[in-house]
């Protein structure tokens, strides 16, 4: 398709996004699909870049280069990876159970993403097994932001696979870099870890309930740090979410349709890349 035709499709695409039901007009579909691919690559580039900070932080936390790479190859979910090395960095091997628990709890949201992606991906054992490993914040967000079924598929696979490749290459680069750096504090890498968690948290702090939970969890974790072994304060702070979420304290008064609220949350999570082509 020419750029002109692509441009012609764009206003239509914009209108489409307002209506909830996808349309399956051929010309529109091709434009949407290309747009999904471009968006996926843009998001992958931005996301892969910070694999460097993960690699460097993991090595300074005490992991070797291989261990760091296995986390990116197998675990492959940024939040859990940062949490795992953060807890190991603070508490050493004694904190390993807490590190496992933190990574596992942060990974729960990927199950929710899998449920959303399952009907998009379709049937077939290998296709679904492959899709499962690429199911992360970014691939789900790019996919669900599209309006046609084909664009959703392309958005998911392009984003997921491109991030997998980029994230693993940049993890290795970061780990090799971290290995030769020496004292991590001199480079401010301890502050970089805190900033990384803040940047992961930021797009999720839109609603009053989320902000309240975030503030309360931070206070609980800080207050418990002097009295518990490293790693445990973070886990106990997670109970704030379970209690507030169970009773829906500070929640919006009228319940939004569940599918829509999930999609809205993902769109919010995607926002840092909105300006990309």
């Amino acid at each position, binding site marked *: 398709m020419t750029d002109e035709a692509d441009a012609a499709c764009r206003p239509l695409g914009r209108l489409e996004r307002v209506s909830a039901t996808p349309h399956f007009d051929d010309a529109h579909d091709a434009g949407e699909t290309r747009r999904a691919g471009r968006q996926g690559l843009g998001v992958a580039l*931005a*996301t892969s870049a910070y694999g460097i900070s993960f690699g460097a932080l993991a090595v300074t936390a*005490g*992991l070797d280069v291989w*261990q760091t790479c*296995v986390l990116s190859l197998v*675990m492959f979910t940024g*939040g*859990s990876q940062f949490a*795992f090395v953060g807890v190991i960095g*603070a508490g050493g*091997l004694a904190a*390993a159970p807490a590190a*496992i628990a933190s990574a*596992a709890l942060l990974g*729960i*949201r*990927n*199950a*929710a*993403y*899998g*449920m959303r992606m399952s*009907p998009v991906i379709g049937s077939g054992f290998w296709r679904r097994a492959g899709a499962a*490993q690429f*199911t992360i914040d970014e691939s789900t967000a790019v996919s669900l932001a599209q309006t046609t079924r084909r664009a959703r598929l392309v958005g998911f696979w392009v984003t997921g696979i491109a991030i997998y490749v980029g994230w693993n290459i940049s993890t290795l680069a970061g780990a090799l870099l971290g290995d030769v750096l020496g004292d991590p*504090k001199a*480079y*401010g*890498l*301890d*502050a*970089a870890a*805190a900033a*990384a*968690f803040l*940047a992961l948290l930021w797009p*999720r*702090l839109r609603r009053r309930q989320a902000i309240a939970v*975030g*503030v*309360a*969890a931070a206070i609980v*974790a*800080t207050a418990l*740090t*002097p009295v518990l072994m*490293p790693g445990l*304060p*973070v886990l106990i*702070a997670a109970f704030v*979410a*379970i209690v507030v*979420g*169970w009773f*829906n304290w500070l*929640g919006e008064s009228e*319940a939004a349709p*569940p*599918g829509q609220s999930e999609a809205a949350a993902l769109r919010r999570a995607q926002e840092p890349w909105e300006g990309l082509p």
Partner: protein
Amino acid sequence: MTLWTAILVASIICVAWKTLGYLVPPKVLEAPRPARIADLLTVALLAALVAVQTLGVGQAIVVDARVPAVIVAAGLLLLRAPFLVVVAAAALVAALLRLWGWAA
């Protein structure tokens, strides 16, 4: 437990979560409570990690160069700076404050 065991156990659990999403019927998500708790769990864990990573050194609470660095990071996030800029700026602020001896 060796570090390798911990890495493999944590990785397998995370892969299991992803796979589980494709095994359960999508209807489960229509219950608002589990969806809401999964959402807030992520917020609580990340916020707790920000706090501990900014103020904790082992079991002690220490205010050092990390605090101004994280404040700078928050300011950049308000200005919608990209992830890598935010992380690099925080590292730079902490490194410079230590180099100049203005903060521990």
